[in-house]
């Protein structure tokens, strides 16, 4: 079957122009930046593993729905709204992660500019590459859950088919809307703003879009009944929420939309038309107008001026490494988006808690505070540590090796400082704000104090055998089994957080038990710190570099035929 599909796809692909096929393949592989990977990385396998994570989510949703179907009535609509919001979240995050991959960049302009390749071929190849990734994500995320929904909600074979087709079309439209909106914002920005300003604004827009996508999912209210949906108080919400537009669109296609809500479905069609027109026209104009500007302008603009005073973050080495980490994360798209993957989970948890803070009265300190903040700390530190493993420029590492004048333990201390500053500290601040919603306050802030120690433990765990400077070694995604690691880690983390949350909520109420818990945690942190310090004394800093394994020659040798001519 796999062979048949492969052969069919190959035959279809052969009909496309050669230059388009070559570029499409290149751009598709470049969704994951090649520089960020080890030379041994297997990129298709890496992408396949991410698809595997999404397939697992889909299977879990589908299985859950088949085993525990919601009762007919209002919960069906809520389920549909939530699933549309989930798909929008995933597609939105993908679109944000692929941020400017559809637009002409300097590398493309420099390499492809002198070649006889039309700008429209580049544009179409890039669009096709981005669409392929989004399509794979959409299919992977929907195939099992969509089928299960059709069986549970469809009612009869005809109803099932109609439901499945309508649902699939709705998700496709919702995805196209989101991706189109991202492209339109960027395209209009690129056309209207001077390039230097656009490059700066683009990074801010990316972060704003990231926040918007998360807030759109985790702060979104659900409207379960017909009376709620027709309540005039909710009219503004319905008018401006894409989730409700596409929820109405689906029910319109499925024939289950009340006439009073038809106007919401119409909004989906109008929004889709506007967004697709704006994105495609702005993209086309970008390729025609800004390709030359792209060559002339540097892609990176760190700022016209710099602060005369910069904070000293410890010793000169600690300052150098910490500022290097900060700048790498802030200025490198690859690193920003990789970190965003983990931080999206942190933000999602924080936003869910913030929503409760706004809408509900204060809660008692329990798992509602403990587990989410522990998970936030876990994802923040692990995510940062993961991003530290992505190289920024392997070939530039020689400078760090030439200037390595201090022992490995000093470099470990500098990395520790970076993890504490950019991983632990922000979560502590957020947790301290969120803790204000819990009572008694003394218990809530005891938990924050414990969280600080827990963060230090995680930092020390992250540093075990990390004999490297952040961003100097290449990660080998193709060689790791991401889906197993991801689900394994998520499962273990949640179980541990649940068990621990129950224990800690008891301990917070009893000063003696809390003191013992804190003492043991401190002992663990100090023990790990000592272990890392002793290990670093004898460890040698490791750098991965692309060294030539063979001697490279120009091969300018006299051809045998010419030699023969010269001999007489």
């Amino acid at each position, binding site marked *: 079957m796999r062979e048949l599909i492969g052969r069919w796809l190959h035959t279809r692909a052969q009909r496309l122009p050669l230059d388009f096929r070559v570029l499409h393949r290149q751009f598709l592989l470049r969704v994951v930046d090649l520089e960020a990977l080890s030379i041994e990385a297997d990129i298709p396998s890496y992408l396949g593993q991410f698809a595997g994570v999404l397939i697992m989510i889909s299977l879990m949703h589908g299985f859950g729905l088949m085993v525990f179907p919601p009762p007919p009535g209002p919960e069906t609509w809520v389920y549909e709204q939530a699933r549309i919001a989930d798909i929008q979240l995933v597609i939105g995050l993908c679109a944000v992660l692929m941020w400017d991959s559809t637009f002409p960049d300097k590398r493309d302009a420099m390499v492809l500019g002198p070649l006889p390749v039309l700008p429209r071929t580049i544009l179409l190849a890039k669009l096709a590459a981005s669409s392929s990734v989004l399509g794979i994500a959409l299919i992977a995320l929907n195939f099992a859950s969509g089928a299960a929904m059709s069986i549970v909600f469809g009612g009869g074979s005809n109803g099932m088919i109609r439901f499945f087709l309508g649902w699939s079309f709705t998700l496709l439209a919702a995805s196209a809307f989101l991706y189109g909106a991202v492209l339109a914002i960027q395209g209009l920005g690129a056309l209207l703003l001077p390039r230097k300003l656009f490059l700066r604004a683009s990074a801010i827009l990316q972060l704003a879009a990231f926040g918007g996508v998360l807030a759109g999912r985790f702060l979104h209210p659900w409207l379960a009944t017909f009376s709620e949906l027709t309540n005039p108080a909710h009219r503004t919400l319905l008018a401006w929420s894409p989730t409700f537009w596409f929820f109405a669109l689906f029910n319109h296609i499925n024939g289950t939309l009340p006439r009073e809500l038809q106007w919401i479905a119409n909004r989906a069609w109008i929004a889709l038309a506007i967004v697709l027109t704006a994105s495609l026209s702005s993209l086309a104009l970008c390729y025609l107008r800004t390709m030359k500007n792209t060559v002339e302008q540097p892609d990176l603009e760190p700022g016209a001026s*710099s602060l005369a005073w910069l904070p000293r973050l410890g010793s000169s080495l600690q300052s150098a490494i910490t*500022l*290097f980490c900060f700048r790498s994360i802030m200025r490198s798209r690859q690193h920003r988006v990789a970190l965003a993957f983990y931080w999206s989970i942190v933000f999602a948890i924080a936003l869910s808690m913030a929503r409760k803070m706004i809408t509900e009265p204060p809660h008692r300190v329990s798992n509602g505070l403990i587990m989410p903040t522990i998970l936030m700390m876990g994802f923040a530190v692990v995510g940062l540590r993961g991003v530290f493993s992505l190289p920024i420029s392997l070939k530039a590492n020689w400078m760090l090796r030439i*200037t*390595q004048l*201090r022992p490995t333990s000093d470099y470990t201390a500098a990395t520790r400082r970076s993890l504490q500053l950019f991983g632990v500290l922000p979560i502590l601040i957020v947790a301290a704000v969120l803790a204000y919603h819990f009572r008694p306050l003394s218990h809530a802030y005891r938990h924050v104090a414990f969280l600080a120690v827990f963060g230090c433990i995680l930092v020390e765990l992250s540093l075990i055998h990390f004999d490297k400077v952040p961003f100097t070694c290449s990660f080998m995604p193709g060689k790791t089994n991401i889906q197993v690691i991801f689900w394994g880690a998520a499962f273990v983390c949640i179980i541990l957080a649940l068990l621990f949350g129950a224990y800690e909520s008891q301990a917070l109420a009893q000063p003696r038990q809390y003191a013992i818990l804190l003492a043991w945690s401190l002992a663990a942190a100090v023990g790990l710190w000592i272990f890392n310090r002793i290990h670093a004394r004898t460890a040698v800093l490791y750098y991965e570099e692309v*060294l030539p394994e063979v001697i490279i020659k*120009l091969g300018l040798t006299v*051809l045998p035929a010419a030699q023969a001519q010269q001999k007489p």
Partner: protein
Amino acid sequence: MLELRRVSKHFSGIPAVDDVSFCARPGQVTGYLGPNGSGKSTTIKMITGLIEMTAGQILFNGNLIDDDIVSYKRRMGYVPEEPHLYNHLSGAEYLTMVADLRGLPARPASERIDGMLRLLSLYDDRHAGIAGYSKGMRQKILIAAALMHNPDLVLLDEPFSGLDVGSALVLRSLISELAARGKVVLFSSHELDTVERISDRVVILHRGKVVADDSIERLRSLMELPTLEAIFSQLAVEHDTDSMARQLADLIRA
């Protein structure tokens, strides 16, 4: 004094540098020449400690460099062949990072960086990203980073690459000035005219082996050739260059 004793480096069993020995003395500029692939950059990388030797010894002031690599690195400045830099930093940020990594005191280092950036005509662009720098500007950043700590040993691998005429003249004088101040200067270049003007002695490498190691005057008189270019052609260029050019032109036409 920098001394190489029977240094070799093999990549996958193929010798890139084969039994190389020579000395570079303080107060002298030593030119290190050879065709592409002859092993010049590999030798310099071994001297910096970036790659391991397969065999041999490297000594600086009579001590094996591996005996105290840290104090050796403190006294060494290196300009690599390729201007690989962290492109996401600005020129000023990169130099400040190098100064911090070298442990130079913050205020004097900052003043020195500012001064170097002014002299190298990079001051106005110091806050722009290195990604936007020209090859010459990157080369200047490399030179500033290599010299900011006042090293005793200066290793320059193709330091003139990408520099405009004015900057190349400044660098040429700078190399002589550094040697005059008692530093050990070893530099490799394909610009034979420049090497001839500023080098006190040259080491010529061919297929990983030293084929000449002497002062230019002695080589001229020994080989009875008028210029360094003629000496180099005789020792290290195997092919008839005119014939090769003709063949390439014919190949394109075909």
